[in-house]
């Protein structure tokens, strides 16, 4: 049994009158692909934002690699080893793809003002290494031919890949992806699945918010289901499909795969 990478207990977050998260607890194991699903408004992105330091929870705890994440700012969370992508793609639009990924290397490199001004041997070596690694990552996600294009000129699918490359540049232990397949067609989604599988095989644990049930079922080892800010199930993907509570939560909402939400036995 692989070790626990991230352990969350009873996380609660409130915004004015809305209880976005209500005592949510779950754990992610090293090396798995962990899915997070739920109807719209269930609190998935809020949970992401709590994990990555954008919001602070009112109560509960989160441990990552044995240390607490509470009270950390987003840049500190990135330093600890969690990198994320965003539901609405937040690339550095007017910088090139290459520069976007190079910025991902920021957290693992050191050169500061003096290095910038004096360009000593150490800084120069670091700069070369940053560029090399960024090119590698662009190859890895399959957009190396677009290295010098501005991020905002990339086609939609490439932008999502770029965001993943940038996140990978931070050398995360946990890669948190917020709806990476949104807006993708079947071919692109298949390619994404291969990519994510490859990332997991290369040693990075993945946490994934998704609405595409086919992708979730095919890719994820275990899945957490949220509804109205509460956890209603956490189990292996196959079991989640059959869970009546989950089916009930989705009834009347979007149906991605024919069998799952309508209660037909798989």
């Amino acid at each position, binding site marked *: 049994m692989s070790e626990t990478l991230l352990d969350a207990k009873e996380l609660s977050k409130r915004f004015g009158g809305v209880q976005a998260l209500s005592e949510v607890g779950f754990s992610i194991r090293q090396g798995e692909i962990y899915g997070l699903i739920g109807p719209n408004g269930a609190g998935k992105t809020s949970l992401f934002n709590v994990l*990555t330091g*954008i919001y602070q929870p009112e109560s509960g705890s989160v441990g990552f690699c044995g240390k607490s994440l509470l009270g950390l*700012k*987003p*840049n500190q969370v*990135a*330093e600890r080893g969690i*990198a*994320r992508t*965003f539901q609405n*793609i*937040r*690339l*550095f*639009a*007017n*910088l090139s793809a290459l*520069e976007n990924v*190079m*910025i*991902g290397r*920021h*957290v*693992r*490199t050191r*050169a*500061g*003002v003096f*290095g*910038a*001004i004096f*360009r000593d041997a150490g*800084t120069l070596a*670091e*700069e070369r290494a*940053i560029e090399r690694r960024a090119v590698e990552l662009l190859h890895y996600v399959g957009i190396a031919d677009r290295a010098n294009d*501005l*991020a*905002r*000129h*990339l086609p*939609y699918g490439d*932008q999502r890949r770029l965001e993943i490359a*940038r*996140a990978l*540049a*931070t050398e995360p232990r946990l890669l948190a992806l917020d709806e990476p397949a949104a807006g993708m067609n079947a071919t692109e989604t298949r390619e994404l699945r291969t990519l994510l599988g490859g990332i997991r095989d290369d040693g990075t644990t993945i946490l994934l918010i998704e609405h595409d049930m086919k992708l979730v079922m095919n890719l994820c080892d275990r899945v957490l289901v949220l509804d109205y800010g509460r956890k209603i199930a956490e189990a292996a993907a196959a079991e989640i499909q059959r869970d009546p509570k989950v089916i009930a939560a989705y009834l009347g909402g979007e149906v991605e795969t024919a069998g799952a939400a309508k209660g037909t036995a798989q």
Partner: protein
Amino acid sequence: MIAFFDTRKNPKLAWVGIALITLALLLLPFAAALVGTAWVRVLNFALLYIMLALGLNIVVGFAGLLDLGYIAFYAVGAYVYALLASPHFGLHWPFWVVLPIGAMVACLFGVLLGAPTLKLRGDYLAIVTLGFGEIIRIFLNNLNTPVNITNGPQGINLIDPFSFGSFSFSRNEKIAGIDFSGPQKYYFLLLAITVLIIVINVRLQNSRLGRAWEAIREDEVAAQAMGINTRNVKLLAFAMGASFAGVAGGMFSATQAFVSPESFGLFESIIVLSMVVLGGMGNIPGVILGAVLLTVFPEFLRYTMEPLQSQLFGRVIVAAETVRLLVFGIALVAVMLYRPAGLWPSEVRKRELTREDNGAAK
């Protein structure tokens, strides 16, 4: 056009270009002196403004932070120099000691201002920095009682010129058979420092730090998510910008031999901002162009407009100063409406400020 100077692509052409420009810059003060000695001072002012504009460019152009009180750092640098190298306190420290001190004090003020305020949203930050600039000016104007620190509105004069040993920058003298006036000597020193500042800026832009600044400007939330400590990096932008202004301020003090709070008002801040905006925010050659244009053009206006009016109407109806500012205002509005990325935009800024912008990545 920068590709013109890319020594890697076309070495012969690039080096010839650089040589020509260097020659032109070296001969410029002598050509200017032929037109009139005042024009050498104009050149020196242009160089000072280039320094200021480049410093502000780090804050506004690279990091995307709007500072409307930038001239306060210039004032700090100028007054530090004036206090430490003039009869006012009887201190006459050498310039190579005082200039760095001025830069450091200005840097300190930059950090003091930035620390509590950099988390504010764009327009609020602008207003707060404006307020800070005014506070500095008011204090400079009033710190003459009960203890006379700044000599109030009268300012401090008889400031020491730069000198080492028996060589002084203010004296006219003959070196190697060529006549150098005081301002011409200052020109070469200012030119050297300006070139240094340009090199530093280019290096900053193409570094890990420069990329971090641009990341913050593009999307602060994403920058933080990628591990950039946005607070410290923004503070660094403020501090660096302030330091450059501090150095320029010290040089201003020495070349003028006189400082007063009048030179450091809101309009001066806006003029430097205009140079950055009109020239091409974030683009170093553009900003230099903006600074040169906005220093030389008004002088040119004054040189021609007032005599012209006297000839045509028998008197000066509209002072050049008024027209200069009016043209500034109109230029600011016009540029934002029709060419928001500036006269010589970097590729980056042009895309960011064009109004039909709605790329998926935004």
